[in-house]
């Protein structure tokens, strides 16, 4: 009788969970690429997004909000920072956002501290919240538990696909920064960066990061003939921008750029 009641409660809980997931615009699940033996692997938070809707990149741009993933701390695992695959640039008139349509897997590097402990404590719990927009926006959230087991070939293949879309180191881009300058135009900073190298013709866009103390005018970003140009305004209008950070896009691949603008080139 006791087990019957327990089963009944479990069914109700499962149905409530399924109903709450099915009503959402975005469905989330946790996957991994753990091979069952390595000390390091990635957890993936997979967002399946209803057609026409999108969620945001680490820098949402002019509007919106980046997804947030908070793991319950586990003593047997060390969980790293979220890695965001290369997003799409989403432009509505003068408003520029960066995000993902249809599907994305955000990757979280994990290191196993104690394999012994993992045998008894192998469930991770994550609280995830995100903003999903089409014409309008809806905030959604979920709390998900995931049991760490050897990953299925399908999950490993999916993780691999998104790992390839994580922006790589700038040094691998085949580009070098030839020169740059920062000009003050009223309250604004006009930043110009010139690249050289074998892949300079492939440079098609730049997705800036948020830079503390400055507001980047995302619609001002222009990329042409190996040059990037953009304007940014200081929170203190007199400030001169000293750092440019973001992802340069070469065809469909991203490379991390971090440029100290105070260094004389």
């Amino acid at each position, binding site marked *: 009788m006791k087990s019957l009641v327990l089963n009944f409660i479990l069914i109700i809980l499962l149905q409530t969970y399924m109903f709450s997931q099915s009503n959402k615009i975005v469905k989330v699940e946790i996957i991994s690429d753990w091979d069952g033996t390595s000390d390091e692997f990635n957890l993936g938070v997979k967002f399946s997004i209803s057609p026409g809707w999108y969620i945001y990149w680490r820098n949402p741009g002019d*509007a919106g909000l980046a997804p947030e993933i908070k793991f319950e701390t586990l003593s047997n695992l060390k969980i790293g920072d979220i890695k965001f695959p290369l997003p799409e640039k989403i432009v509505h008139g003068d408003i520029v956002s960066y995000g993902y349509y249809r599907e994305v897997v955000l990757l979280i590097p994990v290191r196993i501290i104690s394999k012994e402990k993992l045998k008894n404590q192998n469930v991770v719990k994550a609280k995830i919240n995100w903003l999903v927009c089409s*014409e*309008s926006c809806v*905030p959604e959230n979920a709390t998900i538990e995931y049991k760490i087991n050897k990953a299925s070939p399908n999950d490993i293949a999916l993780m691999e696909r998104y790992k390839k879309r994580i922006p790589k180191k700038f040094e691998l881009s085949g580009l070098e920064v030839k020169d740059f300058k920062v000009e003050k135009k009223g*309250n604004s900073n006009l930043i110009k960066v010139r690249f050289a190298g074998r892949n300079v013709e492939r440079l098609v866009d730049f997705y800036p990061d948020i830079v503390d103390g400055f*507001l980047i005018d995302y619609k001002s970003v222009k990329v042409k003939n190996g040059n990037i140009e953009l304007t940014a305004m200081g929170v203190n209008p007199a400030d001169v921008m000293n750092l440019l950070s973001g992802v340069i896009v070469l065809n469909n691949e991203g490379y991390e750029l971090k440029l100290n603008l105070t260094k004389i080139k």
Partner: protein
Amino acid sequence: MNATQIFGILILAFAFSLFSSGDKKVEVGSVVPDFALNDLNGKVVKLSDFKGKIVVLEWTNPNCPFVQRVYKEKIMPGVQSEFTQKGIVWLTINSTNPKHRDYLEPKELKRIYSEWGAVYTAYLLDPDGKVGKMFDAKTTPHMFIIDKDGKLVYNGAIDDDPRGEKKEKVNYVRNALNEILNGKPISISITKPYGCSVKYAE
């Protein structure tokens, strides 16, 4: 028509062309050009009606979850009530274009904001987005403060809590208004606004 009148017309035409081109935006430190919009009752309200007063502009859209939160948590009505009582003019502006699914008729807007306890001097409609674009209003909410001399002195967010999870928030608008009322310079005049995009016609 004499030479002075012709000169005046030319100056007005030049000023209009500057702000209708869509390129020139109002920046912090610059004088805000006059604008006129209809309120929820169809009455024309001009910025110049409030000459010599401190004016707050609040971009809004009741279907945006960020706007809903700042009203339901009484963040926006709290500041509105506190400062309209001190003689500050509060203009709430909705630039949602009529073809967008977030667009609501004035009667419905009046009902929603009344239920939310909004305390504005006027609720203005900017369906073609001209005034929103003049200020480069990007999000809802997006806040601007104009001082007694007609200069833009604040452009940015209502507070420092886009996720709505901080217990102690810095309310930039409250701080800036208190500084102005106490005759102090504004310590933070530009911040990154957060929220939904303004639903301009594309």
